[in-house]
């Protein structure tokens, strides 16, 4: 089937399926990123991937399924195998002084704000460190688990049972209660949940104009997770929904306006038949391996090379491994016919997944610092040379090219408006302007 369009909006979601442990749906196979990239669009911020701290980790079949942040919001606490509430040890410099540093203080805040419903502003205690941003909590979990303080299935405990009454838990977190009861035989009103980090969200994507959502390819628009820029290096909970609503509308309006003016597209018939051939190739390849094997290996390569923690040698090895997978994909076989054929679909998805996997690794290799959803063991902390740079990935002469680009400055009038609306603190503005 051929769709001729003057403008196209890419809204294909994320990349979760590139990783073995992820919270995403089966169709999050990075297609939009790769389609845009192959059409000549620039990708930005591809190194920034959010690992959500609380994914289910037992039984194996549910590994990665998301546990809502709401559990911590309702008072849930994180504990290691010594029963220690460990998050107090992990308050990073940027959050020093903003979170409670003792259990007593955190508990007082919990009692007043969560249980009694008092306004946060009127409470003198600071909030519990379990509520810090997702990257910080996920890294703390990872460290606890790696240093041997994890539970039997390789996670840590998220405990709401000892914090709220069974009635409250069932009322406030009904789907979590059912999810654990049915899938893991765990009654979360009685015992803690075992959890570990899971790949959740891609902050990077197609670089688009913030006013029109158009990429550098005329007529190609993007909105949602597959577009870049909205969430910086680390998305906050709840923000992707508003992202979709606002930028989806902008993309729609501008794509429509563009289509009204644009000329009808010309289709290159030879390219079409080439594409057709490529798509059918898995049926013609006799005796090759099944796509699912390559997918499983890709997920391991990504976890190892560009997981929560990255380092030069592992990234280099990962890039080599991806090349090997690309060679294997050329010979992949599919059985049956083209109707509703998941094995064939995976074979087609893999082309996109491998391209995007490479983009992630190359961008991660380029950013020699740690920031938000990008953490390097060999370059810890922020580096000044990257503070105002974003990494771009694009195709040139059939090869992947990496560039550094200056981040656009916030317009002065917007800065002032943000400050006067109390959305930006004056001292942060000073930092942004390089005055502090």
């Amino acid at each position: 089937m051929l769709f001729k369009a003057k403008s196209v909006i890419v809204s294909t979601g994320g990349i979760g399926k590139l990783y073995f442990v992820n919270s995403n749906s089966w169709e999050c196979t990075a297609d939009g990123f790769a389609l845009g990239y192959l059409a000549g669009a620039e990708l930005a911020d591809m190194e920034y991937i959010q690992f959500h701290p609380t994914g289910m980790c037992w039984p194996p079949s549910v590994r990665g399924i998301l546990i809502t942040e709401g559990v911590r919001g309702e008072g849930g606490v994180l504990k290691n195998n010594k029963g220690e509430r460990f998050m107090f040890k992990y308050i990073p410099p940027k959050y020093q002084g903003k979170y409670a540093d003792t259990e007593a203080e955190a508990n007082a805040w919990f009692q007043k704000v969560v249980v009694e419903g008092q306004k946060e502003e009127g409470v003198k205690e600071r909030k519990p460190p379990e509520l810090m941003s997702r990257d910080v909590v996920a890294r703390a979990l990872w460290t606890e688990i790696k240093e041997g303080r994890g539970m039997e299935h390789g996670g840590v405990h998220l405990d709401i049972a000892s914090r709220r009454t069974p009635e409250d838990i069932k009322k406030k977190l009904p789907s979590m209660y059912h999810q654990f009861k049915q899938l893991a035989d765990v009654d979360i009103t009685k015992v803690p949940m075992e959890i570990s980090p899971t790949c959740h969200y891609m902050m990077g994507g197609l670089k688009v104009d913030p006013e029109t959502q158009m990429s550098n390819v005329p007529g190609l628009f993007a909105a949602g997770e597959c577009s870049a820029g909205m969430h910086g290096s680390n998305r906050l909970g709840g923000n992707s929904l508003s992202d979709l609503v606002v930028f989806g509308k902008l993309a729609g309006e501008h794509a429509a306006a563009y289509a009204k003016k644009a000329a009808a597209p010309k289709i290159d018939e030879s390219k079409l038949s080439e594409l057709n051939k490529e798509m059918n190739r898995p049926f013609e390849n006799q005796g090759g391996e099944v796509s699912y094997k390559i997918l499983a290996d890709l997920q391991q390569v990504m976890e190892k090379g560009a997981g929560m923690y990255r380092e030069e040698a592992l990234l280099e090895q990962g890039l080599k491994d991806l090349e090997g997978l690309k060679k294997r994909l050329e010979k992949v076989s599919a059985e049956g016919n083209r109707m509703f054929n998941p094995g064939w679909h995976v074979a087609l998805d893999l082309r996109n997944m491998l391209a995007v996997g490479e983009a992630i690794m190359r961008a991660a290799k380029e950013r020699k610092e740690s920031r938000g959803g990008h953490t390097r063991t060999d370059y810890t902390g922020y580096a000044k040379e990257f503070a105002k740079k974003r990494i771009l990935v694009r195709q040139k002469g059939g090869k992947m090219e990496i560039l550094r680009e200056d981040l656009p400055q916030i317009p002065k009038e917007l800065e002032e408006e943000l400050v006067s609306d109390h959305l930006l603190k004056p001292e942060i503005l000073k930092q942004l302007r390089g005055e502090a």
Partner: protein
Amino acid sequence: MGQVHMRVYRGNSEGGQFKDYQVEAEEGMVVLDVIHKIQATQSSDLACRWNCKAGKCGSCSAEVNGKPRLMCMTRMNEFKEGATITVAPMKTFPLMKDLATDVSYNYQVNKRIPPFTPKEGAAWSWEQEDVDRVQEFRKCIECFLCQDTCHVLRDHDKMGKFAGPRFFVRIASLEMHPIDALDRTELLKNEHGLGLCNITKCCTEVCPESIHITDNAIIPLKERVVDKYYDPLRILWNKVFGK
């Protein structure tokens, strides 16, 4: 858990048959995991719909050992060791391929239900009791297992004459909404065939969201139809006063 013996339906709109698979199962697996394992290791073209794997999206409906179930919420350890487990597509809907059926009938019915229409000038706050009543119906994930099991659709093929339990739930959520202005009673009686339901409660039994479909949706709707059209006093009143 060791080896499990699966019989999975393979076929399309022209016909098909069960195929046997031996699968190595791991602890904690659900039926959907076993189907995925078959795809990955034995039949990569085995078609099945799925999405969330957490009983929230309602995509992986099938008949497991003859019972309409969500495959992702059916754990393997509920079956006896060594037992054969059959997985078939939903019988009520036309088969596309293997475990994937064409459920578009449901979307057609849905279009024939006038949507929520708030009363003009109504206050947008209401009693908790009213919220809870409607909230139960809104738990529906549209897995269509109730439609699949309902004998009016399944055995008597009343598609087009009978909306089915899912849509009585939807209509109940609208009719019982404190500020909805429409009356869908006539529609229920004439177009959606509410009278064909003989409240055997099969729909309630298979609902993965435990919605009390029969007791809380269908019976109250039936009462409304009876009140309006079959109450002898009302009929008499209407005759006398010429309504």
